[in-house]
Structure formats: C-alpha cells, structure tokens
C-alpha cells in the first residue's frame, strides 16, 4: 500500500463511522472521561485542603505529588496490575483486564496532576483572598468552596491537562486492560498493535482522531483561560 492509499483508507474509516472504529474511540473516551471525573472529585477538594493545611512534612508531600505528575504510565499500570492480579490484594475482585482496571490506572495517572495544580491555584487565591474570607468568617476548610469556585477557570485547565495525559498514554491501559478486541482495546493500544501488524489505515485513522482530540482540548483550555482573564481583570 502506498502512502496516499493509506491516508485514503484512514479517512474512509473516520468519515464512514465504521462501527468497530467507533467502538474503540467510544471506549477510550469512556475510560478517560470517567478517570478524569473521579480524579476531579477526589483531587479538587484534596488539593484545596493541601493548599490550606499546615502540618509537618507538608513540603515533602508537595514535592512527592509534583514528582508523581511525571510518573511513567507503565509504572502506574504495573502498580495496578500487581494490586489486581490473581494473587494480589484486590485479586478476588476479578477486575484485571476490564475497563474498570483501566479507569483505576488512569485515575492514578491523573490524580497527582489535579491535586498539584489545584494546590497551586488555591494557594495563590488564598493569599489574595485571606483577609476578606477570614473577615466574613470563612476560616480554614470552610473557605474551600469559595476558593474552588473562584479558581474555576484555572482548575478547568488542570482537569484538561489530566485528560490530555490520560487520553494519550498507552502503557497503563495496555498492561491492566490487556488490549482485548472489542472489550479493552483503546485508541492508543490499537495504534500500537495495528502498526506492528501492518494495518496502517486503522492506526492512522485513530491517530487522526487523537490529534483532533488534542487540538480540541487545547482550544477549550485556551477558551477557558480567556474567559477567566475577563473575569479576573
């Protein structure tokens, strides 16, 4: 197959809304969006609490979280694999090689990003708002809802950064998902497999979708920061 033919076949897959193709895209989005949602529900309040709390060892926690932002996906995958494997502590749940396991692995990848960026955003806001919030009686953890709401545009960017990392990674979902056709096969794992098999149109078609997704994320992030700047003055 020559280069032009590969591109043509890839476009046909994307535009033709091939069911098998759509199933792969759909699973990828479901896994990643669920992971980001869970990481947000846990990470936003936790990051805000970390921004306001003062305890011994706080700096160590912050450095570790910042370091975890760069955790290699394969290591996160290996960690979840060990937890869920037959002889592991959570083995009896029978979750290995399921979409749930993939979600768990991606939560581990996204959570440090959400917590670390939330911590930074909320800490900056708190130093600006502290006098007023304490004046109206919002001390300590009672200030968190206000700070999360007022940091909403920066925090949206944090969630998008998490989404970007999770949608692009291949190592974690491959290890804990197993790349089972029609069940745990995502865009990135399919690209890996099909490229080595030689089915380039499918790999390229999925690659195009991933690129479009990345573009969309960045457009939304850009829009969020623009709107945020309007409100922030």
């Amino acid at each position, binding site marked *: 197959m020559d280069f032009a033919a590969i591109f043509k076949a890839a476009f046909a897959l994307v535009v033709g809304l091939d069911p098998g193709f759509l199933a792969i895209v759909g699973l990828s989005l479901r896994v990643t969006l669920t992971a980001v949602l869970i990481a947000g529900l846990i990470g936003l309040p936790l990051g805000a609490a970390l921004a306001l709390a003062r305890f011994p060892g706080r700096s160590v926690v912050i450095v570790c979280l910042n370091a975890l932002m760069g955790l290699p996906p394969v290591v996160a995958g290996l960690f979840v694999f060990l937890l869920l494997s037959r002889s592991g502590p959570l083995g009896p749940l029978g979750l290995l090689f399921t979409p749930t396991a993939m979600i768990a692995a991606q939560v581990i990848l996204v959570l440090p990003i959400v917590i670390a960026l939330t911590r930074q955003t909320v800490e900056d806001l708190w130093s600006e708002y502290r006098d007023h919030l304490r004046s*109206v009686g919002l001390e300590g953890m009672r200030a968190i809802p206000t700070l999360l709401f007022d940091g909403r545009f920066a925090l949206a960017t944090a969630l998008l950064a998490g989404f970007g990392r999770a949608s692009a990674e291949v190592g974690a979902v491959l290890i804990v998902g197993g790349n089972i056709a029609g069940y745990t096969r995502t865009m990135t794992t399919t690209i890996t497999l099909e490229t080595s098999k030689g089915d380039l149109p499918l790999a390229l078609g999925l690659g195009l979708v991933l690129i479009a997704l990345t573009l969309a994320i960045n457009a939304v992030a850009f829009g969020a920061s623009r709107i945020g700047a309007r409100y*922030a003055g």
Partner: protein
Amino acid sequence: MRDVTSILPLSLESISFLGEGRRLVDAVSLVVPAGGVTVLLGPNGAGKSLMLRLCHGLLTPSEGHVHWAASATGRAKRHAMVFQKPIMLRRSVEANIDHALAAAGVARMERRERAQAALRRFGLSERARQPARLLSGGEQQRLAIARAWSLRPELLFLDEPTSQLDPAATWQIEELLTGLVAEGITVLMSTHDLGQAKRLADRVLFLHRGRLVEDSLAAYFFAEPQTIEARAFLAGELLW
C-alpha cells in the same frame, strides 16, 4: 433574630502584638464608644493596620484582651472590615455581596433583597452583573464598602481605604463614610492622609512605633498636639 444589645463600646485592655521579635503593638488600651469617626493616625509602620486587624479578630493579641460589650464573634459578628486594596472575588458585583451574606448565614431570599438594597444604596445597581474585578479602583472600593454595609455592622473598620485612589474617588468614598456615620454606623479607620483625617475625624488616635501616643478629640489634636511625636508628624517631619 437580631440581637438588640450593642457590641459597643469596644475596649482594648493593654494589648500587645509581637512579631519578628519586636513589639509591633505595645500595650495599647482604649475604648471605642458608639458613634462618630475615630481615625488611627501615624507614620508607616506605626501599627495602624495591625491595630485594626487585632480589633476585627484577624489577629490575636500576644498579650491583653479585646473586649466587646456583647458577643461579636461567630457568623453574625456585627463588625466588618474594608481593606486598603479592595479584595474582589472573581464573580459579578452582586455575587460578591451575596457571597458575604451567605457566609454570614443569611437565607437565600433575604440575601437577594439585602444585596439589591446595598447596590442601590451605593449606586452600583447598573453594575450588578459585571465582573467585580473589572470595576475601576474607586468603584471596587465602593463595592467593598457596600459589601461590608450589607452585613449591617455596628462598627466598620477601614484600613487606609483611599490610599490607592485618585482625588475624585477619594472624595466619593469620604462622602459615603460621612453618610454611614449619619446612619449610626461607628467608623474606626486608619489613614496617613492628614487632610483626610482633618475632614473626617471626630477623634484621633495617634500611634507611633506601636504605642498609642495621643488620644484626643480631632479639633484638639490638630490645634494643640500634646506630644513631640505628634507635633513632628503634623509638621511633616516624622517619617517613621
């Protein structure tokens, strides 16, 4: 239900505040009764801002006591504070007021009425839906005062409220403060603007290096300052 017992007078019993190994506020005792404008005057670093924060409860005195005539802590504490640089939440003008009322435990329906009343009272109704941080400096300070006013304080603390404003905006804020005093709100404010102190003050508390050096009626203070420090300050010779 609103407690009818006044929180005033406010009494400070020999309060000190230590920071960086120094006495930033040094054994200050005074009483603030209801009514009028009391101005904390003094050069930079005299402890004016610290005094206001200690009174309002943002800081706890290292020694001594801040005593109110009735309970003035918790959610509805009936004293409010306006800061030098207006702290505007990243929300609309009206939402800024609503937020403060919600923090004070006011129910949703009443919040809306009180926020609207505050916007009208301070001429901000047309700005209600605009992002607060896009207002001009003078309007932001006006909103900060409206927000504090909506909490129905008996005593309003203001920390150099016009030091970042141009003369026209300064004049507007001074007019507003005069109106608040006419409503029966007691004002305790700091300034390093002598003209402003002369225009507004009923009573002057002159601070120097954390100590209360002079406490007298404004007319006396400006006509016949009793201490060397106050005389030097009025002559523009005392810089810190």
